[in-house]
């Protein structure tokens, strides 16, 4: 039974392409996300990671290709890399607003729990305009997971966080795969090693590698060096 669940693809992308004028932001991207896994999306700036996540979440349109979900679109939620909210609201109100479309299924008590989970308990009634970027990123994660989505797209969720914040977020991501599938874009390669079951390395909108994390490092070199060599042959840390 468990084996069946694991082999179910939540998201299947084939030959996804996004063009802006003559240039490709994403070119022939393929991805198959298995249920209950954390998949890393790694690549340098401008590789097309954010564009891919925006297309999957429906914020941007694809130029061509196929995207198939095995779950309703309302079960897909994206956390952008720089989440922003109404500055006059408190953290509690923001998470409550994010809960409002699901208020029949998710109780008000969940707000406190989710905010505790992302480490914002002390600032729960503080206005967002007083929040740092790192705090907004934590709040963005809380607003993303409050609706209990089944497919979570995280766009560089640790980019503005201190080491403790990063640790907290990676803990949450690990826990999330019990009930959801996570597509996790990041620059921080050690984060991918820590939490991801599989990884896609992209550069200039093209897939350079797709497979398991261990498959890339191959036991001989570190994951970081393997990714670096893939992106810039001849360069090593």
């Amino acid at each position, binding site marked *: 039974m468990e084996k069946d669940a694991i082999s179910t693809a939540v998201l299947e992308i084939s030959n996804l392409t996004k063009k802006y004028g003559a240039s490709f932001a994403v070119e022939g991207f393929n991805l198959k996300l298995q249920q209950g896994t954390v998949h890393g999306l790694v690549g340098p700036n401008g590789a097309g990671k954010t564009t891919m996540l*925006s297309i999957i*979440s429906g*914020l*941007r*349109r694809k130029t061509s290709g196929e995207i198939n979900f095995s779950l309703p679109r309302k079960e897909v*939620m*994206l956390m*952008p890399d*720089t*989440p*922003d*909210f*109404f500055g*006059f*609201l408190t953290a509690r*109100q*923001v998470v*409550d*607003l*994010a809960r*409002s*479309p699901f208020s029949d299924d998710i109780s008000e008590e969940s707000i406190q729990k989710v905010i505790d989970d992302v480490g914002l308990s002390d600032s729960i009634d503080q206005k967002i305009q007083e929040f740092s970027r790192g705090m907004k990123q934590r709040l963005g994660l809380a*607003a993303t997971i409050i*609706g209990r989505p089944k497919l979570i797209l995280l766009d560089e969720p640790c980019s503005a966080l201190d080491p403790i914040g990063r640790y907290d977020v990676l803990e949450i991501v690990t826990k999330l795969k019990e009930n959801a599938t996570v597509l996790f874009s990041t620059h921080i390669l050690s984060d991918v090693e820590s939490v991801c079951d599989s990884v896609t390395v992209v550069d200039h909108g093209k897939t350079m590698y797709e497979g398991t994390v261990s498959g890339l490092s191959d036991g001989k070199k570190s994951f970081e060096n393997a990714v670096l060599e893939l992106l810039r042959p001849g360069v090593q840390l």
Partner: protein
Amino acid sequence: MNLWKVELLQLFRGWRGWTLVFLFLLASILAVLIGFLIDRSNASEVVGYVEVLEFYMLCSIPAGFLFIGLVVSSMSFDSNQNLSIFLRLRFSFQKILLTKLGVYVPLSEILFLSTFGLTFLVSILMFDTSDPISFKWFVFGYLFRIFGSIFWVCLITFTSAVFKSTVASLLLTLAIIFGFPILVGVATPIELAARGLLETSPNEWEEISYAAKINDWWPTNVSDTDTFLTVTDSEVVANKHSVYFEDTELDPWFRLKPFIISLCLAPLMMLYALRTYSRREI
């Protein structure tokens, strides 16, 4: 927390909503004050409460402009990309737009009616009431006003959809409201001069000038029908209407042309806006 509460909090937790309320109240106070000063300074001219209501409508124009600015800024929610992502991932754009319109349209009418009513109450106590407002014409004018409000909603939704940026959307709105009439105001004498008709009386320009004729069809002029709100019983008998002490013929269809144009444009602008919002990439 829901979208309605957020919209109201955004208005009244900061300066926006309160400034709007203040400007409407200020219009009411200024109208009474102007009426009082004219009444005291001019013994031959009796200021009636109807004139005070006309002053109120003149003084409430700045509040109207602030209101337009607030609505355009609120409707341009895509101008803040990250905030827009938060909203659009959780709520449909139709729900976002409907919430905003559901807050702003009633708010504008509540503010207008309450301060109009306040001015009415104060002015009937302080000024001449021998020539009362014609109730039928008031209702007729108010129906036009409601139609006008719907047209303004469509116009602002349209201008907010054309550009992502709030400033660009606001400038486009102002260009439609003021820009074109100003352009026509400049073009009309130039055209008449070129045709050797500059000596004609300005009252006849609307009949002679092609530029002025175009302006006659300009949809935002439908709001001129607000003058019907202050038609008095004696004016109905005399078939004339005095606005700011100036007499004109009392013609219920004097803004029929812009009414027809706005009736045709409103659904088109709304359709364009809905299409643009639904297809916009964030």
